[in-house]
């Protein structure tokens, strides 16, 4: 019976995933089959405003991008804890408010620390030339 079967309501989601992937695959394949293929070395070189590409495209990049990704994980974990709390916040009442204030407060200390340290300033020069 439908009501007792928990997973059944996720089956359409699985079908949708399948349809999404299939649609994308069909588009790529169709475009590959229908489009013409006239490749020349100049056309196939990476675009660099018409001049011959210089150097390798995959250099090393600023550590700031890495920093952003790291901080993102940490705050994402914080957010994930906030979700289940939010759905029962009404039932928890004042107690829920205080327990979350302590939690958010501690994480905010970390937030202001990275703020003061300039970790989220993109203007800050990357290294001090000394």
């Amino acid at each position, binding site marked *: 019976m439908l009501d*007792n*079967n*928990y*997973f059944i309501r*996720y089956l359409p989601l699985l079908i949708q995933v399948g349809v999404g992937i299939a649609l994308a695959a069909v588009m790529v394949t169709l475009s590959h089959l229908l489009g013409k293929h006239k490749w020349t070395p100049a056309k196939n070189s990476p675009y660099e405003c018409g001049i011959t590409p210089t150097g390798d495209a*995959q*250099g*090393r*990049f600023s*550590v700031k*991008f*890495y*920093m952003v*990704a*790291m*901080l*993102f*994980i*940490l705050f*994402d*974990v*914080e957010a*994930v*804890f906030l*979700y*289940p*709390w939010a*759905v*029962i916040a009404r039932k*928890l009442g004042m107690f*829920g408010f205080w*327990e979350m204030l*302590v*939690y*958010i407060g*501690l*994480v905010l*200390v*970390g*937030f202001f*620390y*990275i703020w003061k*340290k300039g*970790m989220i300033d993109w203007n800050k020069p990357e*290294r*001090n030339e000394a």
Partner: protein
Amino acid sequence: MLHQVLFIVFGAICVAGAINLVAQRHPINSALSLVVVMGSLALIYLLLGAEFVAAVQVIVYAGAIMVLFVFVIMLLNAGAEERTQGSRIAVLIGGPGVAVLTGVIVWTVMRNSQQFGGVLIGSMVEQGQDNTHGIANLLFKDFLLPFEVTSVLILIAIMGAVVLAARKESV
């Protein structure tokens, strides 16, 4: 019936992803295999009825931690590993070692399967009860202290990240 089929399918995808992760030589392929593993794990959680955990698995592991992995690979411009001859000892001991280990685990599970009891797939969902509320009630009432300690953990991790990333300035 359907549940068993889906479990086997997701399990197979998970194991295939894990094997591919080890077998691939380019780090970005390995990282993406790990994303597949995380995704199929989430689906297995979903099969068991752990909806919230499944969603969090995708949001945190596949969506945040693996993004960092991919970022690092992109930033460091890490190329494919070079194939070495490999040590003879690894081949001699590794293969049989894996077989023995798998055998021991399977044997233990089979032997004690009575004690474990069978987990009915989807049985973790109480009828009509959203299990997110169940998790929330446990987390914010019974296990309040561990939860609050998590924030200290996050704080320490933030400081650690800053110290690691800012180290070169002092040098």
